[in-house]
């Protein structure tokens, strides 16, 4: 088309009248140095986004740091609302140095997870105080994108991921808003655009997540202080330590059974073992070096179907049934214990045993770990010999005098009988059962002599009181004994077919060594009669059971319970497939795709072909968006255009049919007759006062398009069929 504006001469001559079109680069430069208005919507969106970035860190960072960040953010907000001015340059410099000094003082370093994140947060907020130009705005948004990820250093739950997604949407909205000056675009439109941009990015992100090559060990690990604040069982046990956990609903680990679910009373998840008692606290015996005696090297492949984990020395653990198979997904707890049903038949990869048969990881568990296990439920542990016998008979002096008298009476009454040890155990358990012992979450405080006071005065206690007192009594009777802590029972999630073990399932019990049988588990808490239990909800603690339901739960409570189970199921899935998606899972996914033999090259191939497919999908959508039409006239005309495309003439989507025909004829005069006819028919049907019920013209158009063979016409063949005039306009 040839508007006057396109007349070249006209254009050149009149250009002094207009501002000459600026180069794109200049426009961009201009844009970057463009001063920000003091309170456009974009600034408020940025404020919201950065506030969302900072907010989760209130749970993790030092309070003083968070106060600083809040003050800085508010300062900017007040400036945007035109109440204050921004600080002068010298003050900004002072503030920046003060931030370094402050973080250094609080953390004694400026490196590491906590100090690093603190510094990042403060610097991000400080940046807002010098945000005056578009360029600064872009820097602030980019920093926000970066700093939001630091949340993952503290928590990797799904909720945090969703929250971050929201944060990213708000930040992107800020970016969009800053690039739009038109009033026609309201905030909702910006949010929608940001949201749809992010949604469109999800397939790409998912592809990269699944296929980006993963190393068996990460290039860099989490900082040492990651997960420092996690609660769980500790490396010592004193009265009150486990009852403290009884209110903690956090998940300790989840278990998926590959064989039938054991009876609830068999679900003892063995954890830390304590042998040294100082009268108040049970600890590891520090006098004996705990050697890493048993290792993968003593592997016995009898019950092991892969070399990844070995079995144990047969003389120490004698299994008397087929082991149950299960897999454990353990939440990070910053200690080295790996929890397993007693008694492990195999060692997980990266696991080892010590002298007390604690299953330990080689490194503290700082991230979610997943391991396959087999355990004997019926077993003999060290039945033949007991090394370090004295360790398990150690007693603190000066306490438990009355308890020792009690034992003395007992021993004399059953002296020299057969199975003396077993009889003593039974007698003590009987004592607990028959005397008025109570099980309570809030036992009275024990002062000087925890053993005697508990056994003869208060007689109210939580599992650790019973385990501690029982072990003391056994040792007094000359039976080697120790305290074992761990978890008991769990909740079976029928939705996902797995067992949830929570911190509130923490438990303590005893093991006594009986000649010929070895170490035998005794749970003194379990003998307390039900009527002596003060809290119904803790029924499960002494009547070992896998709590499911629920007869007396109200409708509301059971619904709430189901929601909780569903939510846990979702979290379990998240842990298994997102957090736990590692090198191994990636490999099995690749072998499922049939690409395993290619190794990382296979990943690269899959990654690039996946990306190409995505890009192609988008490209096809863009290309054919304007082409799909159900109108037969449009269809016929599009067919005509495709035919012309085959000889290299392409219609632009904004070109009118008549102009296109003119262009075609200018390029290929041989085609003038049919092109003119088709165009005339098309325009007449589509734009003139055409009777829609009259199909004659429509058929004529279809026929004309059908008989139109541009390639043949160009090579000299004349169809002679289309001889109509070319009087289109």
């Amino acid at each position, binding site marked *: 088309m040839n*508007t*006057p*504006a396109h007349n070249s001469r006209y254009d050149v*001559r009149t250009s002094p009248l207009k501002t000459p079109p600026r180069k794109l680069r200049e426009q961009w430069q201009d844009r970057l140095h463009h001063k920000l208005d003091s309170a456009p919507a974009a600034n408020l969106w940025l404020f919201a986004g950065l506030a969302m970035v900072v907010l989760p860190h209130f749970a993790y960072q030092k309070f003083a740091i968070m106060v600083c960040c809040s003050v800085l953010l508010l300062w900017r907000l007040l400036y945007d609302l035109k109440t204050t001015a921004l600080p002068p340059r010298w003050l900004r410099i002072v503030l920046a140095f003060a931030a370094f000094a402050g973080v250094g003082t609080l953390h004694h370093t400026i490196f590491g997870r906590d100090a690093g994140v603190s510094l990042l947060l403060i610097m991000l907020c400080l940046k807002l105080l010098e945000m005056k130009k578009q360029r600064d705005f872009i820097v602030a948004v980019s920093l926000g994108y970066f700093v939001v990820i630091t949340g993952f250093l503290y928590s990797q739950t799904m909720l945090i991921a969703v929250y971050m997604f929201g944060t990213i949407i708000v930040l992107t909205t800020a970016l969009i808003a800053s690039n739009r000056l038109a009033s026609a675009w309201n905030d909702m439109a910006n949010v929608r655009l940001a949201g749809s941009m992010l949604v469109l990015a999800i397939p790409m992100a998912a592809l990269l997540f699944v296929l980006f090559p993963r190393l068996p060990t990460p290039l860099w690990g989490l900082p040492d202080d990651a997960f420092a604040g996690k609660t769980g069982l500790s490396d010592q046990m004193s009265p009150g330590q486990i009852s403290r956990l009884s209110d903690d609903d956090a998940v300790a680990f989840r278990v998926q059974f590959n064989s039938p679910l054991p009876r609830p009373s068999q679900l003892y998840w063995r954890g830390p073992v304590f042998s040294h008692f100082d009268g108040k606290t049970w600890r590891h015996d520090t006098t004996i070096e705990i050697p890493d005696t048993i290792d993968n090297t003593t592997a016995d492949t009898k019950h092991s179907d892969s070399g990844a984990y070995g079995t144990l020395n047969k003389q120490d653990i004698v299994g008397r049934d087929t082991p149950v198979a299960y897999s454990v997904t353990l939440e990070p707890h910053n200690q080295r214990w790996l929890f397993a049903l007693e008694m492990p038949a195999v060692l997980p990869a990266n696991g080892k045993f010590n002298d007390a048969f604690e299953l330990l990881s080689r490194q503290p568990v700082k991230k979610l770990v997943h391991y396959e296990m087999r355990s004997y439920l019926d077993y003999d542990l060290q039945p033949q010999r007991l090394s370090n016998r004295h360790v398990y008979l150690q007693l603190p002096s000066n306490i438990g005098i009355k308890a020792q008298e009690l034992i003395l009476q007992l021993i004399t009454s059953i002296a020299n009988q057969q199975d003396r040890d077993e009889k003593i155990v039974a007698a003590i358990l009987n004592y607990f059962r028959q005397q008025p012992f109570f099980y309570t979450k809030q036992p009275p405080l024990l002062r000087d002599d925890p053993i005697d006071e508990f056994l003869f005065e208060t007689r109210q206690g939580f599992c650790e009181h019973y385990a501690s007192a029982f072990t003391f009594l056994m040792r007094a009777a000359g039976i080697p004994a120790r305290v074992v802590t761990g978890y008991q029972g769990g909740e079976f999630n029928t939705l996902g077919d797995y067992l949830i073990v929570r911190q509130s399932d923490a438990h303590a019990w005893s093991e006594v060594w009986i000649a010929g049988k070895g170490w035998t588990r005794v749970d003194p808490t379990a003998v307390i009669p039900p009527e002596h239990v003060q809290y119904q909800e803790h029924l499960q603690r002494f009547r070992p059971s896998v709590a499911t339901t629920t007869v007396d739960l109200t409708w509301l409570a059971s619904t709430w319970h189901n929601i909780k189970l569903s939510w846990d199921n979702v979290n379990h899935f998240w842990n298994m497939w997102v957090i736990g998606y590692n090198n191994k899972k990636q490999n099995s996914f690749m072998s499922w795709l049939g690409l395993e033999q290619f190794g990382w090259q296979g990943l690269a191939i899959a990654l690039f072909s996946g990306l190409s497919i995505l890009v192609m999908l988008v490209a096809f959508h863009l290309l054919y968006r304007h082409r799909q039409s159900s109108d037969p006239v449009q269809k016929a005309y599009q067919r005509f255009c495709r035919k012309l495309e085959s000889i290299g003439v392409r219609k632009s989507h904004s070109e009118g*049919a008549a102009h296109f025909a003119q262009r075609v004829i200018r390029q290929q005069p041989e085609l003038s007759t049919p092109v003119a006819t088709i165009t005339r028919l098309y325009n007449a049907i589509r*734009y003139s006062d055409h009777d829609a019920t009259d199909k004659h013209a429509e058929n004529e158009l279809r026929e004309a398009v059908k008989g139109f063979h541009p390639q043949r016409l160009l090579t000299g063949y004349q169809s002679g069929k289309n001889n109509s005039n070319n009087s289109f*306009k």
Partner: protein
Amino acid sequence: MPSALASDTAIGSVKTLTDSVVNQAGTIILGKKRQLSLALACLLARGHLLIEDLPGVGKTTLAHVMAKILGLDYSRIQFTSDLLPADILGVSIFDRTAGAFQFHPGPVFSQVILADEINRATPKAQSALLEAMEEHQVSIEGETRPLPKPFFVIGTQNPTYQVGTFPLPESQLDRFLMRIELGYPDKTAERALLTGEDRRDLLEKIEPCLDIEQLLEIQGVVDQVHTSEALLDYLQAILEHTRKSPDYVSGLSPRAGLALLHCAKAWALMLGRNHVLPEDVQTVLPFVVSHRLKLTTDTHTMSHNDIAKQLLDIPIP
């Protein structure tokens, strides 16, 4: 619903007439056929024309030629900073012999008015004319007087950055159906201009090609030019684009949409068609919308080029 007027023969004769008008005018204003056609289309669509250009490129001549060829009476108002509304509209003067006030109509009571350098006058004087343009009547001293038919205003405007101008506000720019630029003539046209007869003499000799009845009739035919659903889809796509795009301060108004439609109809008719094609819309588009749109990135209203680039890229459905 094809009427008798819109029949093929009538359309054909309209084309012959308009072609002859453009050709005749082209003998005086050399090398500006496109602008002449647009000016005629604007007149046929019952709109007013704004010409924005430097002095001396032939704006006045164009206005004069149009009036003469169409057989319309013509007057010129030179807008200056001290122009008063009465200078445009007319004034009542006491006639001693009649013993009463007698109204002396101002230059506005003509069929073609050249409002020269309209942006040099104060807003008060500007509004006097612009009111007449919108209402096709003027109210003077409590009496409403109709303006002649047809009523066609050609405003000329100097580029707004020149000294001593009062730029027309958007609302008043909107009253002009089209805005065109004349530009310098090309080399051959300029040579012909320099060697040929004086334009003023030629202007005197020119014969009208149309009479008023014919003009009014053609204006009636323009209304009957057919616009199909597909075409209206395209037009609406353009309007919607300007409203949704972040590039413009505000989108095109419904009035702008109607203006675009009328101009496209007139243009189609001048090409001898009884229906509008997307190409017609594309042809008139830059001249109809450029003075109604403002870029967000630029404080000046858009040049025809910018419009052409952005709006002509909208897909035709």
